[in-house]
């Protein structure tokens, strides 16, 4: 936190769009909060600049001379060599090989080198490429410059900045997000999980009445389905010294499944219909236009129960609009079939997402969710987190003894997908059906979230309450972390030596705290990078530093990208093995930090989270 800060700024660095909201600290007191959203100046078409609340997370890398002089001029930059925002999305629709999209999903993709220029992912060699990290830096720099342009007396690097990340982001992706922010010059930074930001936004929206709307023992399920990801979190309501407290007790897996998949599913289905009925075929741009039209048609159909179908027209690319346009329609039955049954099918609370066998070991594309059913992911999450509230102090669970999954008592929806009340109702009805079958009470829906900008608004509000002006959600890390060590046993041909996992960071470490180093020593080789396997668990809440696991089920521990340490050779003989202990902590920013401490001396070496998996060897 900076004492000079005049504003608490919240940045939603989203998969499909970014937004920036801010609280004027001098004009805010208690629950009277002076909050605004920045109209972000951006090029919308070459040469035309507009301020919009959303900055599409797209980056266009034009060829030399492709665009006329001044085409990408911004109020703060005469001739940028790339376009960010609406212009990138618009140009990219016609020239997909030069547009970077979904950089955030790549930032969290453990199977690729996230520092290597790999985006746009399908571009030919002639196209200049950027790394997922660079793309994120450029978006943040655009937001920074937009802010500074409007607030020349209060530059962004002097303000308190909160950037949101999916709750399911792994430690490496969080570290990369913080690195991108540092690179953009934002030093007064903290990270906040998006579902928490959504809950903060809801709290703020209740004007102080949230305390009457929840009670001790409540378990709030936040279902956040954005453009590209589905993010789940559970918050428990407890009591301490007579005041209500909120604890984020669990977060879901990283699920690459969002509103964009849904719109694309509709478009692909309508395209099939068009191509069947006529001999016309659609090119990539027309599919984009069709997706756009389907999104609008979907919103009309889901918003008006009397509407049976909405006509869809895909304009021709040439000037001949009459006769050249392709007509079709989207019917209510199709939307219900494809969206409601495809993405939110009714299922039992015991159902689990389906996994297809992976083809090949490495993946070049994004690891999209293999099962599109949000409801099945939800069922798996609630069952996995049955014990999530056991250790919360001051919490009186309402859970029946023989419950098979954790019973939420309230649901908060977030993300553009839930603009349609029908989908919200479907998810709520599904959860309540599970609850009834499991002997629980129905959950209520917390109303009043502002879906599109809630995350940015909640983040700015969090920046404000961090200064001691309101309720804070307690959480800490949502996983316990383990380093994998080969067991010392005689080698058996054809059998991999078994791995034991040593806990180096327990569940729920809060920002700005360090753990004791684990007693077990590991050997580092002087002058050589040494890698260790690294695991996280979102369910083992009781393990302490030093706990050793000899075996575990696939549900319990998830393997993360490796961690790596290199001991500098100064003053030592290269090749020597130095015994070290590992110490974990969480920085003030909210990033996991690992250090290696030798048996003797005061040295400490940083242990890196590997973000370069998939690096060409």
């Amino acid at each position, binding site marked *: 936190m900076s004492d000079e800060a005049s504003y608490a700024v919240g940045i939603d660095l989203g998969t499909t769009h970014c937004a920036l909201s801010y609280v004027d600290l001098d004009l805010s007191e208690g629950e009277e909060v002076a909050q605004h959203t920045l109209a972000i100046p951006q090029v919308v078409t070459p040469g*035309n600049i507009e301020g919009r609340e959303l900055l599409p997370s797209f980056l266009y890398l034009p060829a030399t001379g492709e665009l006329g002089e001044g085409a990408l*001029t911004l109020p703060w930059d005469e001739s940028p060599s790339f376009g960010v925002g609406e212009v990138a999305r618009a140009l990219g629709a*016609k020239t997909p090989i030069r547009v970077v999209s979904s950089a955030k999903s790549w930032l969290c993709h453990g199977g690729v080198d996230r520092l290597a220029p790999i985006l746009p992912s399908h571009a030919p060699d002639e196209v200049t490429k950027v790394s997922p990290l660079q793309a994120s830096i450029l978006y943040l720099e655009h937001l920074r410059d937009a802010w500074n342009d409007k607030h020349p007396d209060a530059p962004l690097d002097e303000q308190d900045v909160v950037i949101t990340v999916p709750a399911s982001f792994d430690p490496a992706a969080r570290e990369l997000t913080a690195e991108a922010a540092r690179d953009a010059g934002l030093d007064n930074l903290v990270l906040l999980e998006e579902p928490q930001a959504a809950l903060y936004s809801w709290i703020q929206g209740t004007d102080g009445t949230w305390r009457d709307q929840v009670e001790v023992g409540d378990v709030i399920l936040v279902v956040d389905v954005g453009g590209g990801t589905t993010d789940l979190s559970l918050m428990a309501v407890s009591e301490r010294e007579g005041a209500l407290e909120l604890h984020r007790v669990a977060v879901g897996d990283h699920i690459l499944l969002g509103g964009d998949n849904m719109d694309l599913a509709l478009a692909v289905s309508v395209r099939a219909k068009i191509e069947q009925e006529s001999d016309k075929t659609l090119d990539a741009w027309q599919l984009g236009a069709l997706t756009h039209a389907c999104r609008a048609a979907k919103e009309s159909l889901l918003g008006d129960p009397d509407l049976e179908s909405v006509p869809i027209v895909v*304009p021709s690319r040439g000037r001949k609009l*009459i006769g050249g*346009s392709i*007509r079709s329609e989207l019917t209510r039955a199709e939307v219900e079939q494809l969206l409601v049954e495809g993405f939110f099918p009714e299922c039992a609370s015991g159902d689990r997402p389906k996994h297809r066998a992976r083809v090949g070991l490495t993946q070049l594309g994004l690891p999209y969710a293999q099962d599109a059913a949000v409801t099945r992911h939800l069922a798996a999450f609630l069952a996995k987190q049955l014990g999530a509230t056991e250790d919360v102090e001051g919490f009186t669970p309402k859970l029946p003894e023989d419950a098979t999954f954790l019973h939420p008592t309230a649901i908060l929806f977030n993300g553009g997908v839930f603009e349609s009340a029908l989908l919200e109702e479907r998810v709520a009805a599904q959860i309540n059906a599970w609850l009834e079958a499991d002997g629980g009470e129905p959950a209520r829906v917390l109303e009043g979230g502002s879906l599109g900008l809630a995350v940015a608004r909640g983040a700015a509000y969090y920046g404000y309450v961090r200064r001691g002006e309101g309720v804070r959600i307690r959480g800490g890390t949502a996983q316990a972390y383990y380093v994998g060590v080969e067991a010392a046993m005689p080698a058996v041909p054809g059998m991999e030596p078994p791995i034991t996992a040593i806990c180096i960071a327990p569940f729920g470490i809060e920002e700005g705290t360090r753990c004791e180093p684990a007693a077990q020593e590991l050997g580092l080789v002087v002058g050589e990078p040494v890698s260790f396997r690294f695991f996280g668990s979102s369910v083992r809440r009781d393990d302490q530093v030093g706990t050793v696991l000899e075996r575990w089920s696939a549900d319990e521990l998830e393997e993360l990208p490796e961690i790596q340490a290199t001991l500098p050779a100064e003053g030592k003989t290269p090749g020597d093995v130095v015994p070290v202990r590992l110490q974990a902590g969480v920085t003030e920013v909210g990033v996991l930090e690992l250090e290696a401490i030798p048996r003797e001396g005061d040295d400490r070496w940083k242990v890196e989270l590997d973000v370069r998996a998939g690096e060409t060897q």
Partner: protein
Amino acid sequence: MSDDQAPSFFARLLLAWVAYFRTIFDAEFAAGVVRLRDGQPALPPPKDEPEEAPKKKKKKKKKPKPAPVLKEAGPGAALQLLGLLQREGRFIDFMEEELADASDEDIGAAARVVHEGCKKALEEHFTIEPIHASEEGETVKVEEGYDAHSIRLTGNVVGEPPFEGELTHRGWKCSEVELPKMSEKHDPSILAPAEVELA
């Protein structure tokens, strides 16, 4: 300045547009703007005339009636709007089409594209609202001192207000315009660039 001389919103928009460029490129004009900002008359006092000049002017009689100043809208904003309507709603494409041989069904399909896009462009850049709150067909009152710019009397126009009559059109008023800013090198006369797809 009395009310009837106050320029309309669009005239002010245009004036601001023209003044903006002249301030940049015309040093004399800019000097006038500076004087206006400082609360002085825009034109400098003529150097060779003595201080009493204003008094003399008052004595001068029978100035010929000045020719009315007619406003001329510059092309910039208009071209920008055309480009916007073409981009969002394929407006130029549609207007340049020959409708004689087209079926109503095909025209209807194209009209959906034009309507949806142009509506979006209008909503994004203009705040447009009806002038009269009553429903068309209702009998409405026109009070004394009504604004003749925003209410047009038709039919049997005799006598003095207040009047009573049937509202035949609610009228439209644009309360806010927010056109995109343009980069200096941007040529707004290109309404839509030709597109060449490379295989």
